[in-house]
């Protein structure tokens, strides 16, 4: 029913600053998992399996591969612009940002692990990652047992989408040309 409302009137868009204050003031409860997308507060579903285990596996393997050359963050908010602060499943960040809130310039790679959220990740979140200039994003489709790598961000999405030939040595966007071993992911 509210879809009609969206077509007929303007939904008020919150800024990232508004959204953060709502969290600090308890208007958004601490136990609520949310992200801000184009000024709208989106609720994230409860974390279930195999989603959680898959995200943990990827994060672990990434840490082994990157060692101290990057920071691996799980479910941390990333400020993309004035109205977007998503919470990607995994973020690979430039070293040295520990403790600070990550902004888009800190991001080397974002990874979304999709179970029920595939369309939302692909159609809502990835175009916004591309628009913000996030250089690379991976989509892990648990249902389809498929990893896609998205590169060359533009205003409307990623121009390059490819599937790696194997999961044993997936190249990471780091100067040292490290690869991640994701065998056993699916």
């Amino acid at each position, binding site marked *: 029913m509210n879809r009609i409302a969206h077509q007929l009137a303007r939904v008020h868009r919150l800024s990232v600053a508004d959204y953060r204050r709502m969290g600090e*003031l308890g208007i958004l409860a601490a136990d609520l998992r949310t992200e801000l997308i184009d000024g709208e507060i989106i609720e*994230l579903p409860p974390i279930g399996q195999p989603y959680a285990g898959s995200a943990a596996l990827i994060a672990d393997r990434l840490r082994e591969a990157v060692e101290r050359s990057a920071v691996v963050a799980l479910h941390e908010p990333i400020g993309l612009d004035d109205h977007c602060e998503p919470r990607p499943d995994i973020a690979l960040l430039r070293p040295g940002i520990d403790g600070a809130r990550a902004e888009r310039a800190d991001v080397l790679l974002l990874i979304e692990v999709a179970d029920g959220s595939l369309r939302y990740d692909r159609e809502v979140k990835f175009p916004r990652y591309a628009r913000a200039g996030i250089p690379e994003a991976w989509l892990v489709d648990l249902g389809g047992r498929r990893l896609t790598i998205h590169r060359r961000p533009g205003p409307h999405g990623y121009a390059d989408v490819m599937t790696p030939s194997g999961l044993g040595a997936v190249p990471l966007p780091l100067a040292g040309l490290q690869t991640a071993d994701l065998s056993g992911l699916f």
Partner: protein
Amino acid sequence: MSATAEIRARVHRLTVDDYRRMGALGILGPELRTELIDGEIMEMPPIGHPHAGTVKFIANRLKEAVGAAAIVAVQDPVWLDDHSEPLPDIAVLCPRADYYRTGHPGPADVLLLIEVADSSLHYDREVKLPRYARAGIPEVWLVDLGGRRLTVHRRPAPHGYADETSPDNLGLLPVPVGVPAMVDLTSLF
């Protein structure tokens, strides 16, 4: 239009209490005209003069017609349920000594709501009226400025008003305030 409109099952719905706190704490600034509809904050368009003049005309005529039998409020919040607090153009309310200083009126306080629609006709008709009906608001008048037409909506039900009429005579409209009261809206259009 909202970017997530296509895939929007998970938009967080604010409560009326959240929404009022956002106003009190300045997260929603005083320059904003908004209403809360099903937990989402909707921005109201700037008020044009045909709309504003029509609202003033109706509100003044109504006040003359009802006297002390009701309070006539203009563009004030009325809460409907835990997630909706719209700003109807005109609300005719049960009289109360404190004039609702101690809390916004709710469904039980409302005798009649009036929406004056210019560009907002579809929004008023398809979004707001069904919610007024669901909350049990007993009567709503919809004034369609473009179509030069007034419709009276009665018999609220969960999905809308069961009864919609277009009065023949704008000069003698009964106002549902519990005592006999007629308003003359002859020069409305």
